[in-house]
């Protein structure tokens, strides 16, 4: 026979356990429904793609308010400028989702950032949810000049403001017609030229001599060398039996100050500096600039690498890494970030693409507030800046000199492993008070100082209004 008192106590305990269960379920619901906001922009979430077909979806605007993407009454999406196709992006269940359409989907579809009034109306009056308009940092003039300057050549251009990290232009060639994505998406997806790929953020190229900015920064901050240190290159330098020629440039052989080795980009000297630095110190500096990981940015970025994972860290590999070859891979955005940190006196303002969210004409919220992070000392940044000014002053970068403006730059001619070298140029201006950084890569374009630098020159002039 059960004792009624004991039975009651046991049922009480059972009830207490069930209340605990209620708390657990409440916690789980709150976790999924309130805290896991990342699920709302997961490209695998079918709601993300469905949101694109809503005629009330917000527009994507450039910096000046020109419309880059807008929805028609039938829910189809209209795009105006193919040169920003990969930046604006698309949502598609068949071809994946990318670009600003994905990054700002919650705002554009009206799921986030709307006023209480709008949320109330949507919930209780069943009025359609109007998405917010999203203004990007893209400057239409600089974007147009950059697209025209690169033309039909395969490659990418990134221009950004080093003071605040705002991306002013981002071009990736070849591009595609976003409106035609649904008709020939399959063809675009399998096209060997990868038109859907945003080369500025996802293209991984050997950076070539533009990486010498990083090697030099590491050498300066570790007091391994100064610009005035005399260096000698006898014709070739041998690292563990592996010869590196001084004659990758005509001025290579001889005795001269280190600043010349930077200006003329002598590989053998940088190989020596790299070996003196060692893997640890070079890696530490490179990682401060963002290497060996995916750069945090509004859009997805491909990870950069100093060497292939699991590679044996030999001295010859270190030597070739120091002058920008080896197994190095970098995105154009990453190289722009290196220059931006140097331009902004050693402090990196995080790069971003979102400017603000608008409800009609009123600003609802600022997007992508940049965070500042010191990468190198101010003095090291100034030293590098002066070396980069000399690159342009000595005439190593055709077409970038601007009368009355000091331009700082670094060329790169990266062996691609197949065919002609990739042409690189990274620059900023005006050198004393930089307002624009440009990184250009032309795939299999040839010499950086002949092919990439004129493109950068045109963009710098457009940005400075010259």
């Amino acid at each position: 026979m059960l004792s009624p008192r004991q039975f009651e106590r046991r049922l009480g305990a059972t009830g207490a356990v069930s209340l605990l269960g209620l708390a657990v379920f409440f916690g789980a619901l709150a976790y999924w429904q309130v805290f896991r906001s990342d699920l709302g922009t997961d490209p695998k979430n079918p709601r993300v793609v469905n949101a694109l077909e809503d005629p009330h979806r917000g527009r994507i605007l450039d910096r000046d308010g020109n419309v880059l993407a807008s929805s028609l009454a039938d829910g189809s999406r209209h795009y105006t400028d193919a040169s920003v196709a990969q930046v604006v992006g698309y949502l598609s269940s068949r071809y994946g989702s990318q670009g600003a359409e994905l990054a700002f989907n919650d705002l554009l579809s009206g799921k986030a950032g709307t006023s209480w009034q709008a949320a109330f109306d949507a919930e209780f009056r069943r009025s359609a949810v109007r998405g917010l308009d999203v203004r990007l940092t893209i400057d239409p003039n600089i974007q147009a000049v950059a697209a025209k300057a690169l033309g039909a050549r395969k490659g990418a251009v990134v221009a950004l403001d080093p003071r605040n990290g705002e991306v002013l232009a981002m071009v990736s060639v070849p591009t595609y017609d976003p409106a035609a994505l649904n008709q020939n998406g399959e063809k675009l997806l399998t096209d060997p030229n990868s038109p859907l790929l945003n080369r500025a953020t996802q293209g991984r190229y050997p950076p070539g001599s533009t990486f010498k900015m990083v090697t030099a920064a590491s050498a300066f901050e570790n007091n391994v060398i100064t610009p005035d240190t005399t260096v000698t290159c006898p014709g070739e330098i041998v690292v563990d039996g592996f010869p590196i020629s001084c004659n990758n440039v005509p001025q290579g052989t001889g005795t001269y100050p280190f600043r010349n080795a930077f200006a003329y980009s002598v590989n053998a000297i940088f190989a020596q500096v790299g070996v003196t630095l060692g893997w640890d110190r070079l890696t530490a500096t490179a990682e401060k600039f963002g290497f060996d990981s995916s750069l945090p940015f509004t859009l997805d970025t491909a990870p950069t690498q100093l060497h292939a994972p699991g590679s044996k860290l030999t001295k010859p590999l270190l030597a070739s890494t120091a002058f920008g070859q080896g197994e190095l891979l970098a995105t154009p955005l990453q190289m722009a970030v290196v220059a931006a940190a140097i331009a902004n006196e050693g402090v990196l303002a995080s790069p971003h693409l979102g400017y603000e969210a608008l409800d009609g004409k009123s600003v609802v919220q600022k997007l992508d507030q940049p965070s500042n992070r010191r990468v190198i000392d101010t003095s090291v940044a100034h030293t590098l800046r002066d070396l980069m000014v000399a690159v342009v002053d000595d005439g190593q970068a055709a077409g970038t000199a601007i009368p009355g403006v000091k331009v700082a730059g670094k060329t790169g001619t990266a062996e691609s492993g197949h065919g002609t070298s990739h042409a690189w140029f990274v620059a900023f201006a005006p050198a004393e008070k930089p307002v624009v950084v440009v990184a250009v890569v032309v795939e299999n374009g040839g010499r950086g100082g002949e092919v990439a630098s004129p493109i950068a020159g045109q963009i710098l002039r457009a940005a400075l209004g010259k």
Partner: protein
Amino acid sequence: MITSRDRNTELLLLSGSAAFILVAWRALDAAGFTMPASSARILTQFLASALLGHLGLRIVAPRAAGQPYAVVLLLCAIGLAFVTRLVPSVAQAQVNWISAGVLLMLASAAAASRYPVLRRYKYTAAFVAVLLLVATGLFGTTINGARLWFRIGGQTVQTTELIKLFLVVFIAGYLADMGGALAAPRLRFAGRTYSALPYVIPLLLTLLTAMAMIALLKDLGQIVLIIMLAMAMVYVATGRLVFVFGGVVLLGLSLVFGYLAFDHARTRIDVWLNPYADSAGAGYQTLQSVYAIHAGGITGEGLGLGDPQAIPIVSTDYVYSAIAEELGLAGALGVVLLYLLLLFAGLRVALSARDDFGRLLAACIALLLAIQAAVIIGGNLRLIPTTGITLPFVSYGGSSLVVNFMLVGLLLGISNQANQPQA
């Protein structure tokens, strides 16, 4: 007809379910949802069944507690609204099952006036349960890769739902007889002490047989449910936490065994741990459920305005995720509260009963429904691996609805007996 305070309370509470189904119908219409052709008939039939059940209870169990039936009907209203919204073509079938369930509930409530008789048939009940499982294993119909159904006259019956009726009778009857022996750690008789262990053996043996059969039928969710129910019931009957501990060990062992022995169990556990590993294949359903729950936010997308159809088999296995999407945290938590209310109402019936068997039977029914809801909701919220059992009174499915209604009928019958004036 006898007027009773409990029945009046019930009628008042029932107006809540009526209001819910009317508002739901209006909301679905406003959302631009294409209602099934017979939507007016479905609505009328639901309201008529609700009223019929209430009037029937005034006759067969006038003194029974008022809350259980009202809570069950509100759950049915939520379920009917979501089944209509998710699979309009089976909405008529769902309301037919609700009507049948209400009638069978009345029958079982009426029969329950003689419920103490059932105690005598506890071993028969256990035998029938095992027999039903064996028969299903041999002659059953396979649906969705699991052989759980029996075809009778063109209608499929899910055996693992049906055996719950027999299982509660066995568990309650057995514990009413043996609870005293189990409660004492040592038995003293004629100056000698005996271990209580042998008394557990019949219970353990029956449960293990049933579980082994269900394991062969590949319904692992039911095994978890039965272990947890047995665990809770032995505690309620004996107050000894050592049995709860034993149950936890058993649960752990059966999970490990399931993981090692059954491919589909292993898949479910792997998917639970990392659905992204195979996001287009095995993990697809789990991921879609998580996306749906997330989309709900605090107040939900609104009935008919979400995309819960993206979840495969949503109307039976993931109806809770659909509720979480369209009614939000507020609605989904409301559903949990309803099961809690049902549990508490059931436990109150257990307290009021005058005999051990009645007490344990009422507690067993209340715990069965609550644990079943907790297991499926926990699975939908990814707290535990998904199990594929139904959300009582809400999921689409005839066997489960009818059996659960009969269990509630039994509960109401016990309550009615308990509240009879003392002779």
